[in-house]
């Protein structure tokens, strides 16, 4: 029982990371019906840039710098990989282009920071806190609340500010928003910026607990996609729940079966959800128009 509670506690922290990356997928999907297949690499870059910056500034001042880096990186991805494909309505085009950018980022990171996993200094004490016999790292608590805060901030921004309303309007109907004078291509660029920013943030949140390195992105990006699908690409609640489901199943599999297999249940879940309820557990199905 003790062990189970412990596993669930760690699973929650991992799950929130998946949730926040998945939230990034939702942002771009809402405005442009496209996704960044290099989302995991955005996270990895954020984390590695953070690692370099942190030695000069300390953890908390590093955060805004990494967030700004994420904004720029997202805009670059959109400009280079997505814009052209949206214009020519080429689906394979943006899929291939964002994958290409992802592998370029990964390869550059390998050449800059090396191929090995690196230790990220933790800003908080690394001695676990104990709640009723369940050990929790202080950083894990920061992950849970940091991830929630980031999602809330973006949501509040979207709902309250006039710029956010432009994002929502574009998400609802791109053509109509364009006719109302909203610069929709700028909004799409902006949504990519926000998306990469949340990923970069997730990167520096998770890095002190796990390790960081050029190879960290791929699996995280894919599992976050699984979360986005399980939760539904349109549901904010969905990514949190989806993240938790995946995070917990994963730590359980890692402990009870083998760490080698810990990525499998999430991916199998992804395949099952797509086979039986592609709009996700929390999403609503769209009606095709003929």
């Amino acid at each position: 029982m003790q062990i189970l509670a412990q596993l669930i506690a760690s699973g929650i922290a991992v799950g929130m990371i998946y949730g926040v990356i998945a939230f990034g997928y939702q942002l771009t999907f809402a405005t442009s019906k496209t996704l960044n297949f290099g989302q995991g690499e955005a996270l990895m870059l954020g984390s590695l840039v953070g690692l370099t910056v942190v030695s000069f500034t300390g953890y908390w001042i590093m955060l805004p710098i990494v967030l700004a880096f994420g904004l720029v990186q997202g805009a670059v991805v959109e400009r280079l990989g997505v814009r052209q494909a949206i214009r020519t309505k080429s689906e394979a085009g943006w899929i291939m282009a964002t994958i290409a950018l992802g592998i370029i980022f990964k390869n550059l990171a390998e050449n800059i920071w090396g191929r090995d996993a690196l230790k990220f200094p933790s800003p908080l004490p690394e001695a676990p806190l104990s709640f009723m016999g369940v050990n929790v790292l202080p950083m894990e608590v920061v992950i849970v609340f940091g991830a929630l805060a980031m999602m809330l901030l973006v949501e509040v921004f979207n709902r309250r500010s006039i710029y956010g309303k432009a994002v929502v309007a574009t998400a609802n109907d791109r053509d109509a928003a364009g006719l109302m004078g909203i610069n929709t291509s700028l909004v799409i660029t902006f949504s990519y910026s926000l998306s990469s920013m949340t990923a970069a943030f997730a990167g520096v949140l998770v890095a002190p607990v796990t390790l960081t390195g050029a190879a960290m992105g791929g699996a995280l990006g894919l599992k976050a996609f699984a979360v986005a699908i399980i939760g539904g690409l349109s549901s904010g609640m969905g990514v949190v729940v989806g993240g938790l489901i995946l995070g917990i199943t994963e730590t359980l599999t890692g402990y009870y079966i083998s760490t080698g297999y810990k990525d499998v249940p999430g991916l199998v879940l992804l395949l099952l959800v797509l086979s039986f309820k592609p709009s996700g557990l929390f999403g609503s199905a769209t009606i095709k128009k003929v």
Partner: protein
Amino acid sequence: MKRLATLAAIAAAVLFPFLVTSPYYLHLVVVIAIFSIVTMGLDIVFGYTGEVSLGHAALFGVGAYTAGVLAFQFGLGFWIAIPCAIVVALAFGALLALPALRVTGPYLAMVTLAFGTIVAILINEMTFLTNGPLGISLSKPLFADVREQLPFLEMSRPRLRDVEYYYVVMASFALVVLVINRLLASRFGRAFEALRDSPIASDCMGVSVYRHKVLAFVLSAGFAGFAGVLFAYSEQYIAPNNFSFELSIQFLLAVTMGGRKSRVGPVLGAAIVVYLPNLLADIGQFRAVAGSIAAVAVLSGGWRMIKLPEERLRTLVPVLLCLGFFVFSLLLEKITDYKLTVFGLMILFMVYYLPEGIWGFVRTGLAGFVSAPAPIAARGDDANVWSATAPRVAEGRALLEVKHITMQFGGLKALDNIDLTVMPGTIHGLIGPNGSGKSTMMNVLTGIYTPTAGAVAFEGQDIQGQTPSAIAGAGIARTFQNVQLFGELSLLQNIMVGLNHFYRGGVADVALATPRARREEAAARLRAASLLRFVGLEALAHEEARNLPYGKQRLLEIARALALDPKLLLLDEPAAGLTAPDIKELIAIIHKIRDHGITLILIEHHMDVVMTLSDTVTVLDFGQKIAEGKPAEVQADAKVIAAYLGGSHAEAA
């Protein structure tokens, strides 16, 4: 011309091991041929059905590991491995395609990525079967020691083994080219392209999108598995990291770069992808290549800038990129570390500037110099337009009976408790203002929507809830309000997709080119040409459908629907966008269709068309039936006038 090129290629392949004695180049060509088998198979999925697969490295790995495991665990050799690997890969391909029932595009791409990752994990973890990260060693078979029989072959045993293996791979390659050519020229190839261009129209032509998408994945997987065996025995050692995500990217890069929808393209791409790492191993050579690319870019870009001054800026970007790439190559010391960056840049460049790939680019360029061979003329005749199928309903009974149909979208009732009875051999007009539910009715009748309540009986059988392709098979064909043609297929091929139901031969028939397959193809061609002639488009038989003017697209849709041999034909605004003379022609065509015993439902806003053609007219308004009867009665109905011209029901009454 094409035949000559093929013969030259075969001759070169046969002579190659004797002209080039270096084992290095022999091996290189073998690997290129093996990769080509995968990329040509991938092209079925990526080029024809238009889906991005990131799981082909895994399928390739499944094939290789089937061979590896058979040799390592059971001591079974090459000839047993081939059929086993193909069967296993086919099964994995089917598994991979299962989610394709519901999803396409980015979802499916992610599914294939997840699948690839799972397979990689399994290969790595199932040590008891696959020997895990240590990998499996195999030895290349020596098929026959022919040095005694052929004394002029002066070669060592290992070299003979390499040469023999080279021929086995080349023969496999040739076989695969032949089979893929046949498959893609057949109804299956047409179906793959049709479901990419318009999945809904494919379903409504009785070509099940799901079944054909699975078929495309399965076929593609089979080729990848076959190539996997060849790869395992060519390399003589396989390990899990041979079949990573990176390899899937290389396969996709090869198809994109070489050019989709051809055999030459994927082979060209495979050659580049295989040769590239060798190129990258030598920094001097790499700089030379980057330099010549930059030189070509500057020259052609400069020429273009002079010719098209208004596009100066757009031209400048790729030129600068190529120059930047050259500078990048000069700055680097060890290029091998940047292999993936180079791959990534190449993909980006292709997506931006050569979406048709190298072969696509060359082909369009060549088209200016060499006139394309005229396709075999398709000649139709009047005798083959109709294929009689009398409706199976008793005298005096309805062909179609719609009972209390309700279709609800959220809070909106697009159809509210509608009854509709269509007698065989009649033309039934369905009219109403915009948004009255006419097209929704069409979609319910053809199975695109499942009605919220009520029943649809066709020839006495309930059909609501069946798939569109099953309903099409039962004998209901339709055209679309927003024309849904298969844009990249020719007119003739569009109609031949509609004739899919007429074929009996399967994949094996096509692959082996049996007499039955040839006979059926010829008959379908004749029938399709006859139908084209019927709607007056015979002269354009080999034009791509997307190049047709709007009015003719509508006529083509009618011809395609007739190819289904329907008992009931639904025409959704066939006269929309037609000129007056075209409308006259359309009326004549509709009369002829009715005279051949086909029942019609006609949605139309041109009142003169509806009123001259229809035997009965039903009027819908806000999802409800407000009138039904002979055209003259309906025209005089006060409610109908109110619905069209405004005014309250009270006034009307």
